[in-house]
């Protein structure tokens, strides 16, 4: 098989008679920023769910670094290096900002329950390491001052960035962002694009993102996949996709007879 970092082949997800996703091929290479776009209900989030193990694909294959992850429980896919954020923010609301970021590192803690109870040296060292990394990530998303606040107390834009920091704590190989810019104003979107680029450049994390804002997508991503009604209709560089008549049709509807 190819040596792509993340690869989906002929991915299908059917709910009864509804073909939410059908025959989607998708591939993200190391260090790439790739976008998945399409009108509402095109099956983008369902794609994410099948890749991350939140849903089980009806058919098709998902490979991470050449290993098939189909049928893995979601936590195992995440530990293998797939971090994600959510369309409707899903923070651990009552936990502090710092604890939100520290949580995904639990599987790397390296100590057991007994060590936690006895507060052994290994425990203290591991906790110190985790906290340092969490604070570093909070600094990356410019939330270091809010570390002690509860997640639900943060303003909306900060919550979105906190989700990104939390996903990065997994030390993912690929980061899946589900509509990260939704509800942001233009200047916030600019900062977010900058953040995504920094994550890719400084940490070498590949990014796959779903976004509706075309300006944001076209400016940020190197390749774009377009879905409509669960099926792939186009893929390529931003300029190729922009010029594709099927994409225009999917977004704007078929041109009226008279205009043709």
């Amino acid at each position, binding site marked *: 098989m190819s040596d792509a970092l993340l690869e989906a082949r002929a991915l299908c997800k059917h709910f009864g008679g509804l073909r939410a996703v059908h025959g989607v091929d998708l591939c993200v290479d190391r260090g790439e920023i790739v976008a998945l776009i399409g009108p509402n209900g095109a099956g983008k989030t369902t794609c994410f769910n099948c890749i991350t193990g939140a849903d089980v694909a009806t058919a098709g294959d998902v490979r991470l670094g050449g290993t098939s992850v189909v049928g893995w*429980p979601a936590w195992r896919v995440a530990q293998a290096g797939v971090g994600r954020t959510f369309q409707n923010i899903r923070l651990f609301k*009552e936990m502090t900002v710092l604890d939100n970021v520290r*949580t995904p590192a639990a599987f790397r803690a390296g*100590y057991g329950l007994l060590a936690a109870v006895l507060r052994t040296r290994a425990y203290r060292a591991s906790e110190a390491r985790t906290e340092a990394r969490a604070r570093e990530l909070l600094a990356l998303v410019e939330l270091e001052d809010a570390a002690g606040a509860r997640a639900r107390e943060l303003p909306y834009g900060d919550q979105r960035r906190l989700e990104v920091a939390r996903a990065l704590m997994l030390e993912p190989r690929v980061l899946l962002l589900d509509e990260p810019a939704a509800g942001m104003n233009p200047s916030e979107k600019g900062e977010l694009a900058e953040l995504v680029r920094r994550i890719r450049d400084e940490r070498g994390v590949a990014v796959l993102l779903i976004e509706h804002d075309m300006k944001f997508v076209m400016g940020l991503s190197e390749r774009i996949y377009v879905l409509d009604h669960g099926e792939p209709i186009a893929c390529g560089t931003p300029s190729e996709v922009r010029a594709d008549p099927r994409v225009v049709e999917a977004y704007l509807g078929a041109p009226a007879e008279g205009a043709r």
Partner: protein
Amino acid sequence: MWTLAAEFQFSWLWVAEVLVGVALYAMLAASLNLVTGFGGMFSLGHHGFFAVGAYAAGWMASLAASVEPGSAAGWAVFAASAVFAVAASAAAGLLVGLPCLRLRGDYLAIATLAFGEIVRIVIQNTPALGGSLELNVPRLVMRPRGLAEVESFRELFLVVGVAALAVVLVVIRNIVRSAHGRAVVSVREDEIASELLGVPTTRYKVRAFVLGAAFAGLAGWYYAHYTGSIAPANFDMLVGIKILLIVVLGGLGSLTGTVLAAAVLVGLERLLQSGVFGEDLKRWMQVEYALILILVMLLRPHGLLGRFELGDLFRRRARGGRAA
């Protein structure tokens, strides 16, 4: 101090008895708080694990009925029965938790409620455990004969109870503050997000549930040895609701709140039982329980202290009372 009823005296013997009750219920409620408050799992059958621990300890002690109380052998059996009680409750927790924790939260409430009933049915149908009658738990560490010895027996158990409670509280606190504890709390907050961020949610839920069951078993061990005889009626649903009431009063996710609520509730209950406030309040006690539970939920759905520890409140005050 109080002179509501002249004939009642607040002797040290009475106070020690109340404090033993506080320690017992604080232990039970803290263990349930780990499950419900921190883990977000709704368990209505905690009294079942309490019963398993009590009967495991009681059964083991009844095998050693010929041991001289207070001898080294007596103490050894006393300690061994604690280990056995904890192990038995943990095993029961695993048995209930493994199948049920995959299910949605609401079903767990029913399954645990059912478990509490099943434990009772099993005990009632097991002659070796006394059936529906009492199981005598022989004294292993001291045999109270005269009034003075009753008093020192209570004092001894007060010390044992406070020590056991301290162990339970410290263990829970340390675990909650560790990476594993954060994983458990994240499951409470958002199970799906937690799973998608690399937390094996079922595994963590089972761990927390089993740990909570084990501590309830420790409380059972304590109770069995203290009262000297146990019967299925001591472990009915009302006990489960009382534990839950303490957790809710103290705040889901607040350990100091739990201890405080246990002190308030058990103290109040014993005062009512003593008849200081008159016979009417004593007779209507169960109704009052229910009313307190409903009123707390209506007025303060997150409990009196919410998710704060006592220390947090003082710290908040110091920072100028910044509202959360």
